[in-house]
Each structure stands twice: as C-alpha cells, then as structure tokens.
C-alpha cells in the first residue's frame, strides 16, 4: 500500500488522468453542443469508433497524423448528419436513433477492420509528447501537466473556446434558446432546425476526434470496440456538468482520475478484483444521473420541434 502514497506514484496518476481526460473532453464537449440545442445524442460511442478506425487507417496508409485527425472529424461529421437527418428532419425518437447510430458505428468499424486489415492489430506512430519549455522542467508537476501530446493540449484548449461560443456569441445564445424554448426562438425568427443541425454536426466532429485520440494519441492502435463505453460516459458527463463547459472539464477530470486510479491499482497488484475496479467509472456515471437536478437542463432536450397549433 505504501507504494500508492509516494509522490512519484501520485503524480504518475495525475499525469495519466490528465491524458485520459482527453476523449471525455472532446466527446463531452461535443455532446454538450448536441444537448444544449435540445438533441440527446446517444450515438457518440458509434461516432467515436468510426472516427477511431478511419483516422487509424489513414495514418497507417499515409503516416500523416494531421490528415488522420481531419479524417476522423470528417467521418464524425458524416455520422452526425445521419443522426440529424433521423432525429431532426424525420423527428424520430432521439434515444432510439442514437442507440441505432452507436450499433451502426460499432458494426461498421468492426467490419472495416476485419475486411481491410484482416482483423490484425497493428500500431502506428502516434502524436509525440511535446514538453512545454521551462514548465515541463518543474519536478513532478512538469511531467504530470506539461509533457503531453498536442491532442491533450487541444482538448483543454477546447473548454474555454466552447464557453466563448456558448456564452459570448449570438450563435451560442441561439443554441441555448433553442434547447430551452424552441417556440420562443422560432417567434424571433431563429431557424430552430438549422441551429440543431449545426450543433449535432459540431458534436459529431468533436466525437470523431475523440475517437482519434485512442488511435493516434494514446494507445496508437485499433481494436474492435476499443472505446469501451467512453461515448456513453460522455453523455452522462454532460448531465454531470450542469450543461456548462467548465462542468464538463470538472467531470472529465473526475472520471479520468477514477480511471487512472483503478488502472494504477491493477498495475500495483492491489487486491481488488479488476472487474470491480473497472466498474468504478460506470458506477460513478449512474450515481451522477441519479443526483443531477439543474435549472440549466435544456427543457426541450430530446423533444423534436414542431410548430404546434397552440
């Protein structure tokens, strides 16, 4: 047990958690845009898997990491268009269409993996760590906070950007209004469905990138179903966040710390069945959903918009 308590181990967990928060941040902020506009997108997991495979394959072929991220964003966008079409234009129940999208994405990524790569697990060179000058030299802290790859930095940079868009722009105001009271927005000439399309597509792009973090910035290989429920945790995270970007940051860190902690416990061989340890983040997810009550919950969440007679 003493191993857990020394500084090196603790900062090791911190550094790992900082890195592990990356997919939660991309996917969580993406889902935040979906939900802020009133679309409940359970398809995140599927979008991530498609993003993960497509980016992996492109980098495997070309070795161009930037192109890989771009392709992940592109496939995420396409998957999102599908979601938007089903849930916004055709007004299908959002929960069901999201689950459908996840199953589709899971199946598609596995199929492509088996047919194109014969199901062989290969690895690619991922994004290298870029130490921040000076700051990374600080003992312990430097390694934990300032020695990561660009996709990690990008994830954290995205938090203030999302806040800026949501709270300081006319677009963000429309997004929040459309999620809360689409009728009100409509009477002021806001195109409700257009705003929702934009948000779902932005969410798809971010979720696609979240998938690429697995294949290009952390594990650097592709396996079937490798996102392992991260997409669903991202959905829960948005509830946890109280529908605010800073809340997503807090939630992502909480989940990644729990995750890093359980991983480290396994490595140290602490005698807790690994299954229980792996349940921890998901248990946290369920608890989150039980206790969240927020006025900022978009009142029109998961309700397709129709101009009614009343």
């Amino acid at each position: 047990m003493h191993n857990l308590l020394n500084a090196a181990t603790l900062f090791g967990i911190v550094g790992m958690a900082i890195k592990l928060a990356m997919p939660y941040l991309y996917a969580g902020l993406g889902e935040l845009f979906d939900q802020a506009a009133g679309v409940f997108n359970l398809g995140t997991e599927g979008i991530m898997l498609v993003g993960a495979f497509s980016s992996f394959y492109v980098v495997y072929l070309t070795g161009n990491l930037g192109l890989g991220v771009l392709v992940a964003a592109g496939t995420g966008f396409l998957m999102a268009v599908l979601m938007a079409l089903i849930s916004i234009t055709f007004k299908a129940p959002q929960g069901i269409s999201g689950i459908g999208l996840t199953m589709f994405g899971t199946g598609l990524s596995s199929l492509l993996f088996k047919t194109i790569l014969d199901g062989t697990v290969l690895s690619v060179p991922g994004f290298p760590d870029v130490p921040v000058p000076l700051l990374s030299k600080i003992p312990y802290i430097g390694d934990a906070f300032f020695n990561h790859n660009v996709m990690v930095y990008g994830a954290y940079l995205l938090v203030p950007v999302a806040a800026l868009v949501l709270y300081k722009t006319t677009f963000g105001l429309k997004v929040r209004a459309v999620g809360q009271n689409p009728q009100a927005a409509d009477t002021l000439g806001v195109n409700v469905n257009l705003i929702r399309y934009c948000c779902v597509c932005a969410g798809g792009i971010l979720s696609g990138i979240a998938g690429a973090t697995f294949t290009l910035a952390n594990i650097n290989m592709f396996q079937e179903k490798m996102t392992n429920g991260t997409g669903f945790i991202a959905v829960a995270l948005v509830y946890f966040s109280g529908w605010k970007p800073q809340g997503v940051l807090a939630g992502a860190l909480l989940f990644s710390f729990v995750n890093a902690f359980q991983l480290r416990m396994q490595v140290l061989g602490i005698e807790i069945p690994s299954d229980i340890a792996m349940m921890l983040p998901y248990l946290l997810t369920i608890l989150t959903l039980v206790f969240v009550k927020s006025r900022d919950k978009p009142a029109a969440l998961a309700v397709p918009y129709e101009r009614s007679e009343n």
Partner: protein
Amino acid sequence: MALNQKPHMAQHIRKLQMVDITKRFPGVLANDRVNLEVNEGEILALLGENGAGKSTLMKQLYGLYKPDGGTIKINDEAVEFHSPTDAINAGIGMIHQHFMLVSNLTVLENIALGLKSSRGPFLDLDVVRKKTMEICEKYKLIVNPDAYIWQLAVGEQQRVEIIKALYRGADLLILDEPTAVLTPQEVEEFFVILKKMAAANHSLIFISHKLHEVIEISDQIAVLRDGRSVSQERNVNLTKTDLAEKMVGRPVVLQYEKDSCPNIGLRLSIQDLCVNNDWDEERVSNFSLDVYGGEIVGLAGVSGNGQRELAQSLSGLRKPTQGKIMVNGKDLTYAGPYEHNLAGQSYIPEERNKEGIVKDFNISENFILEDHDKEPYSRHSFFNFPNITNKTQRAVDNFTVKTPNLNVMIKNLSGGNVQKLILARELERDPSVLIAAQPTRGVDIGASEYIHRRLLAQRCKGTATLLISEDLDEIRALSDRIAVIFEGRLMGVVDAAAVTTQQLGLMMAGIPRDEVKEQMGEAFAAIS
C-alpha cells in the same frame, strides 16, 4: 444596432387590413373569410370564445401560419409573410398568451436573441442594454435587465415581452390575452402602458374574452364566432350583454342565483402546509384553510403563486414537507391519490389533457379510470361491460357531453366536452370533498356556464368544494368565501358577497387581509 430597426422596410404602419382570410386545418375550418381593420394610434379588441379562431388569425398576421385564402394589406398594399421574421421586418410584433421567453436566460439575452450584433459573431449586450433602457424610459416600463426570466413575476415577464417587440421596431402589436395572468391592479397599470403606446402612434390588437376590459380599453371591437367575422364597430354605447350575445350567438347569463345551503361539518382541513416544487424550493408556506360541507371556497391568486403545488399536494400527487391535510377527519398528509379517492375526495386537475384523461383511451375507458377495479365496473378482475356502457352513457347524457358514441378516442373531443366528462366522472361519485383546479380554463362560455351550474348544484348536495382559479370573475360568481394566496402564503379569507375586486386585487398583490382592512377602513368587509 439602430440598423436592426426594420431593415427592409422603414414604412410606418398607418393602416392594416386583413381581407377574407381563410385557414383550414385537417377537418376544421379555423378562419372563414375573416375581415379586420386597424389604424395607427388605435386599440382594436378582438373578441371571441376559445376556439373562435382568434389566435389562428393572429398567427397568420405574424407569419407563423400561411393563410389558405385572403390577403393582408399594410397601407393598402398587399403583403405576404412567410415567417415571423417577415412580419417583424414589416413592423409587427406579437405578445403570445404563453410568453415566448427563455427562462434560464437573462432579460437582456432574451431581448438580444435573434438580433444581428454590431460585433459580428459576438454578442453586444452593452448596446442592447443601452437601447433597452431608452425604451424602458420612454414607455415607463420597469424591469431589471440582468435578472433571469425565472426570477421575474408574470407581470414583469410581460413587460419584457413588450420591450422585446418595441426593440424590434414594432409599429403594430398583437397582444394575445395579455390580462389573463395579471392582478386587477396590474391590469390597470398595463392599460396605462397600452394607452401610452397608442398615443405614440402604435396600433394595437388586443385579444380577449373579458368583456369589461374590452369595453374599457378599446377604440374598436371586432367579434369572431366559429371562425367567422360577426362584427367590427366603434366602441360606443356597447354593453356587455350585447357583446356576450354576439360572441356566443345566443343570450348568456352573466350571473348566477345562489341558493343558500346549510354548512354541514368540517370536511377538508389544511393545517400549516408547506410544499416544495421540483427544484426543492418552497412554493406553499404554512398554509392553513378549512372547507366545510355545503360551501365553495374560492382560492384566488395570480398564476404561479403556489396554486399548482397546493392542488397537487391536496390530491396526493406531491408530498408536503410539513403540515397536515385532513379529509373527513382522516389524516391524508402523505397519502397517495388512491387513498384520497377512498376517503371520498374528487379532483379536477388543472391540466386536463395531462392529468385528467388518457388521450388514447375512449370515453368509457376514461370514465371508469378511477373506479375501474370496483363494482359495478368490474368483479374479480373482469370488466362488466354492460354496466360500464350503461353508466357511461347515462353520464354522457346527464352532462351533455357531445360525442357520436362511447368508443370515440377522447382526444377527438373539444376541450369543453373533455372537461364535462371529467366533471361527470368526479361528480358521479358524489364526493364529499372536491378540489377543482381551473375547471373552466380553455372551455367555451356555454360549457363554462354548465360546469358552474353543476358545481353549484353539488354544493347544495353538501360537497365541500375548493375552487382554485385564476379567473376572478369565476371565483366571485361561485364562491361563498374567498381565500387569497400570494407566493404560497395565505393573505386571508374574506366573505365573497361583501369583498370588492379592488380589495381582492390588493391581497393578490401580496398585502395581507388585515393590512387591506386598515387601508380601507370600514369599507372592507371581512370575516374570520
């Protein structure tokens, strides 16, 4: 930001006409060649029953619906609106009956929503703030620009709606039942604002079914009935009786004769009750009230002052945090709806389509909903269909529910008929306690009159009725005593026959009975 004002059309609306407007919905002719005209500086009242087509007509003027026939003319030129944006650009603003405000945004954010910003993609709330303050100053509209909408009282929210429309350069304002949610005093203040706007050469269309208000405020009165224009005339020498007859199509009784009924015993006793809303905020505070058999106690109050939470806790749908609810001497504070039923209590819920009926059930199924597991409707878990049909048919006949047969889905009935069926179901059980929440909201005058008579008849059978209503006229017409609620607290109980509307208005605005009594002196008649 000044550029936002009517970017495409700087023309002032001197005259607006709607000519032969026709609008169909599947199975309904909502507007049938309707005509309307309003000039600058004028207040036009649009009068009609629920379902007469007033809102449909106005939604076409505001670009939310497209007319199937007819033309809209501004200054004698035909115009076409494909969306609210077109209408806003032409200088038309609309204040909806259910406010179109986003509750977790601030006042300024609500005003800025949908406007072009002077700073490109970024919000320019300081510019919006400056112009908002100018409008507030000009029309004497007081509101805190940084408050969240959910923090504001209904009257304040209405002012935000008006500012929103004026900010967008509205020349002509459509006001859909604007006084429904206001206290009598707030109505007076509101009328002052309307007159100020008319004096500033705005045109106003004021939708209402409250006759005395229409006569008080408008220059012209147009009446709609069953989707058709009945009349439009100057407001000179028009009486309430005339207007009511035009609106309904037959002479209408505006006051009821009440027989005196003996008070028999305490039936419902509410003691020190506290109830929270969904956000764990206290909405009913230390509320105490006794209702006796053979009386109707009206609970008056402006919408959103805890009536909803109170009604829900009295019917077992919401657990109180403190206090006691006694029905016929039984403690039902924490009991569910089933126990309330067993104790002889009936409940007419505020939202009839959500809490009163199952939309996709037919009439018989809805009728037996509460007592389906008891005789004579069922035995040993099996339905007795002949009994169900007989009982339902009798109730439908008794309460004049208009329906082709008992197998019609209840969602296909009009609001008035649904409400009559709910009333039949609740009164058929001959309850000793009746909680009636907004029993005639959205119901046409004919059906309202019928429901009122039934409630009065039930009173004479010895039922203790708590009538929760936002319609002060209804409360005054039916109640023996009137209790007033403000922010979840009881402001006092007064004798319905002696109290004036003005006194009730003061109490509804949060002044306790005893203080009102002090202000009014001898003129105030209150009982304890």
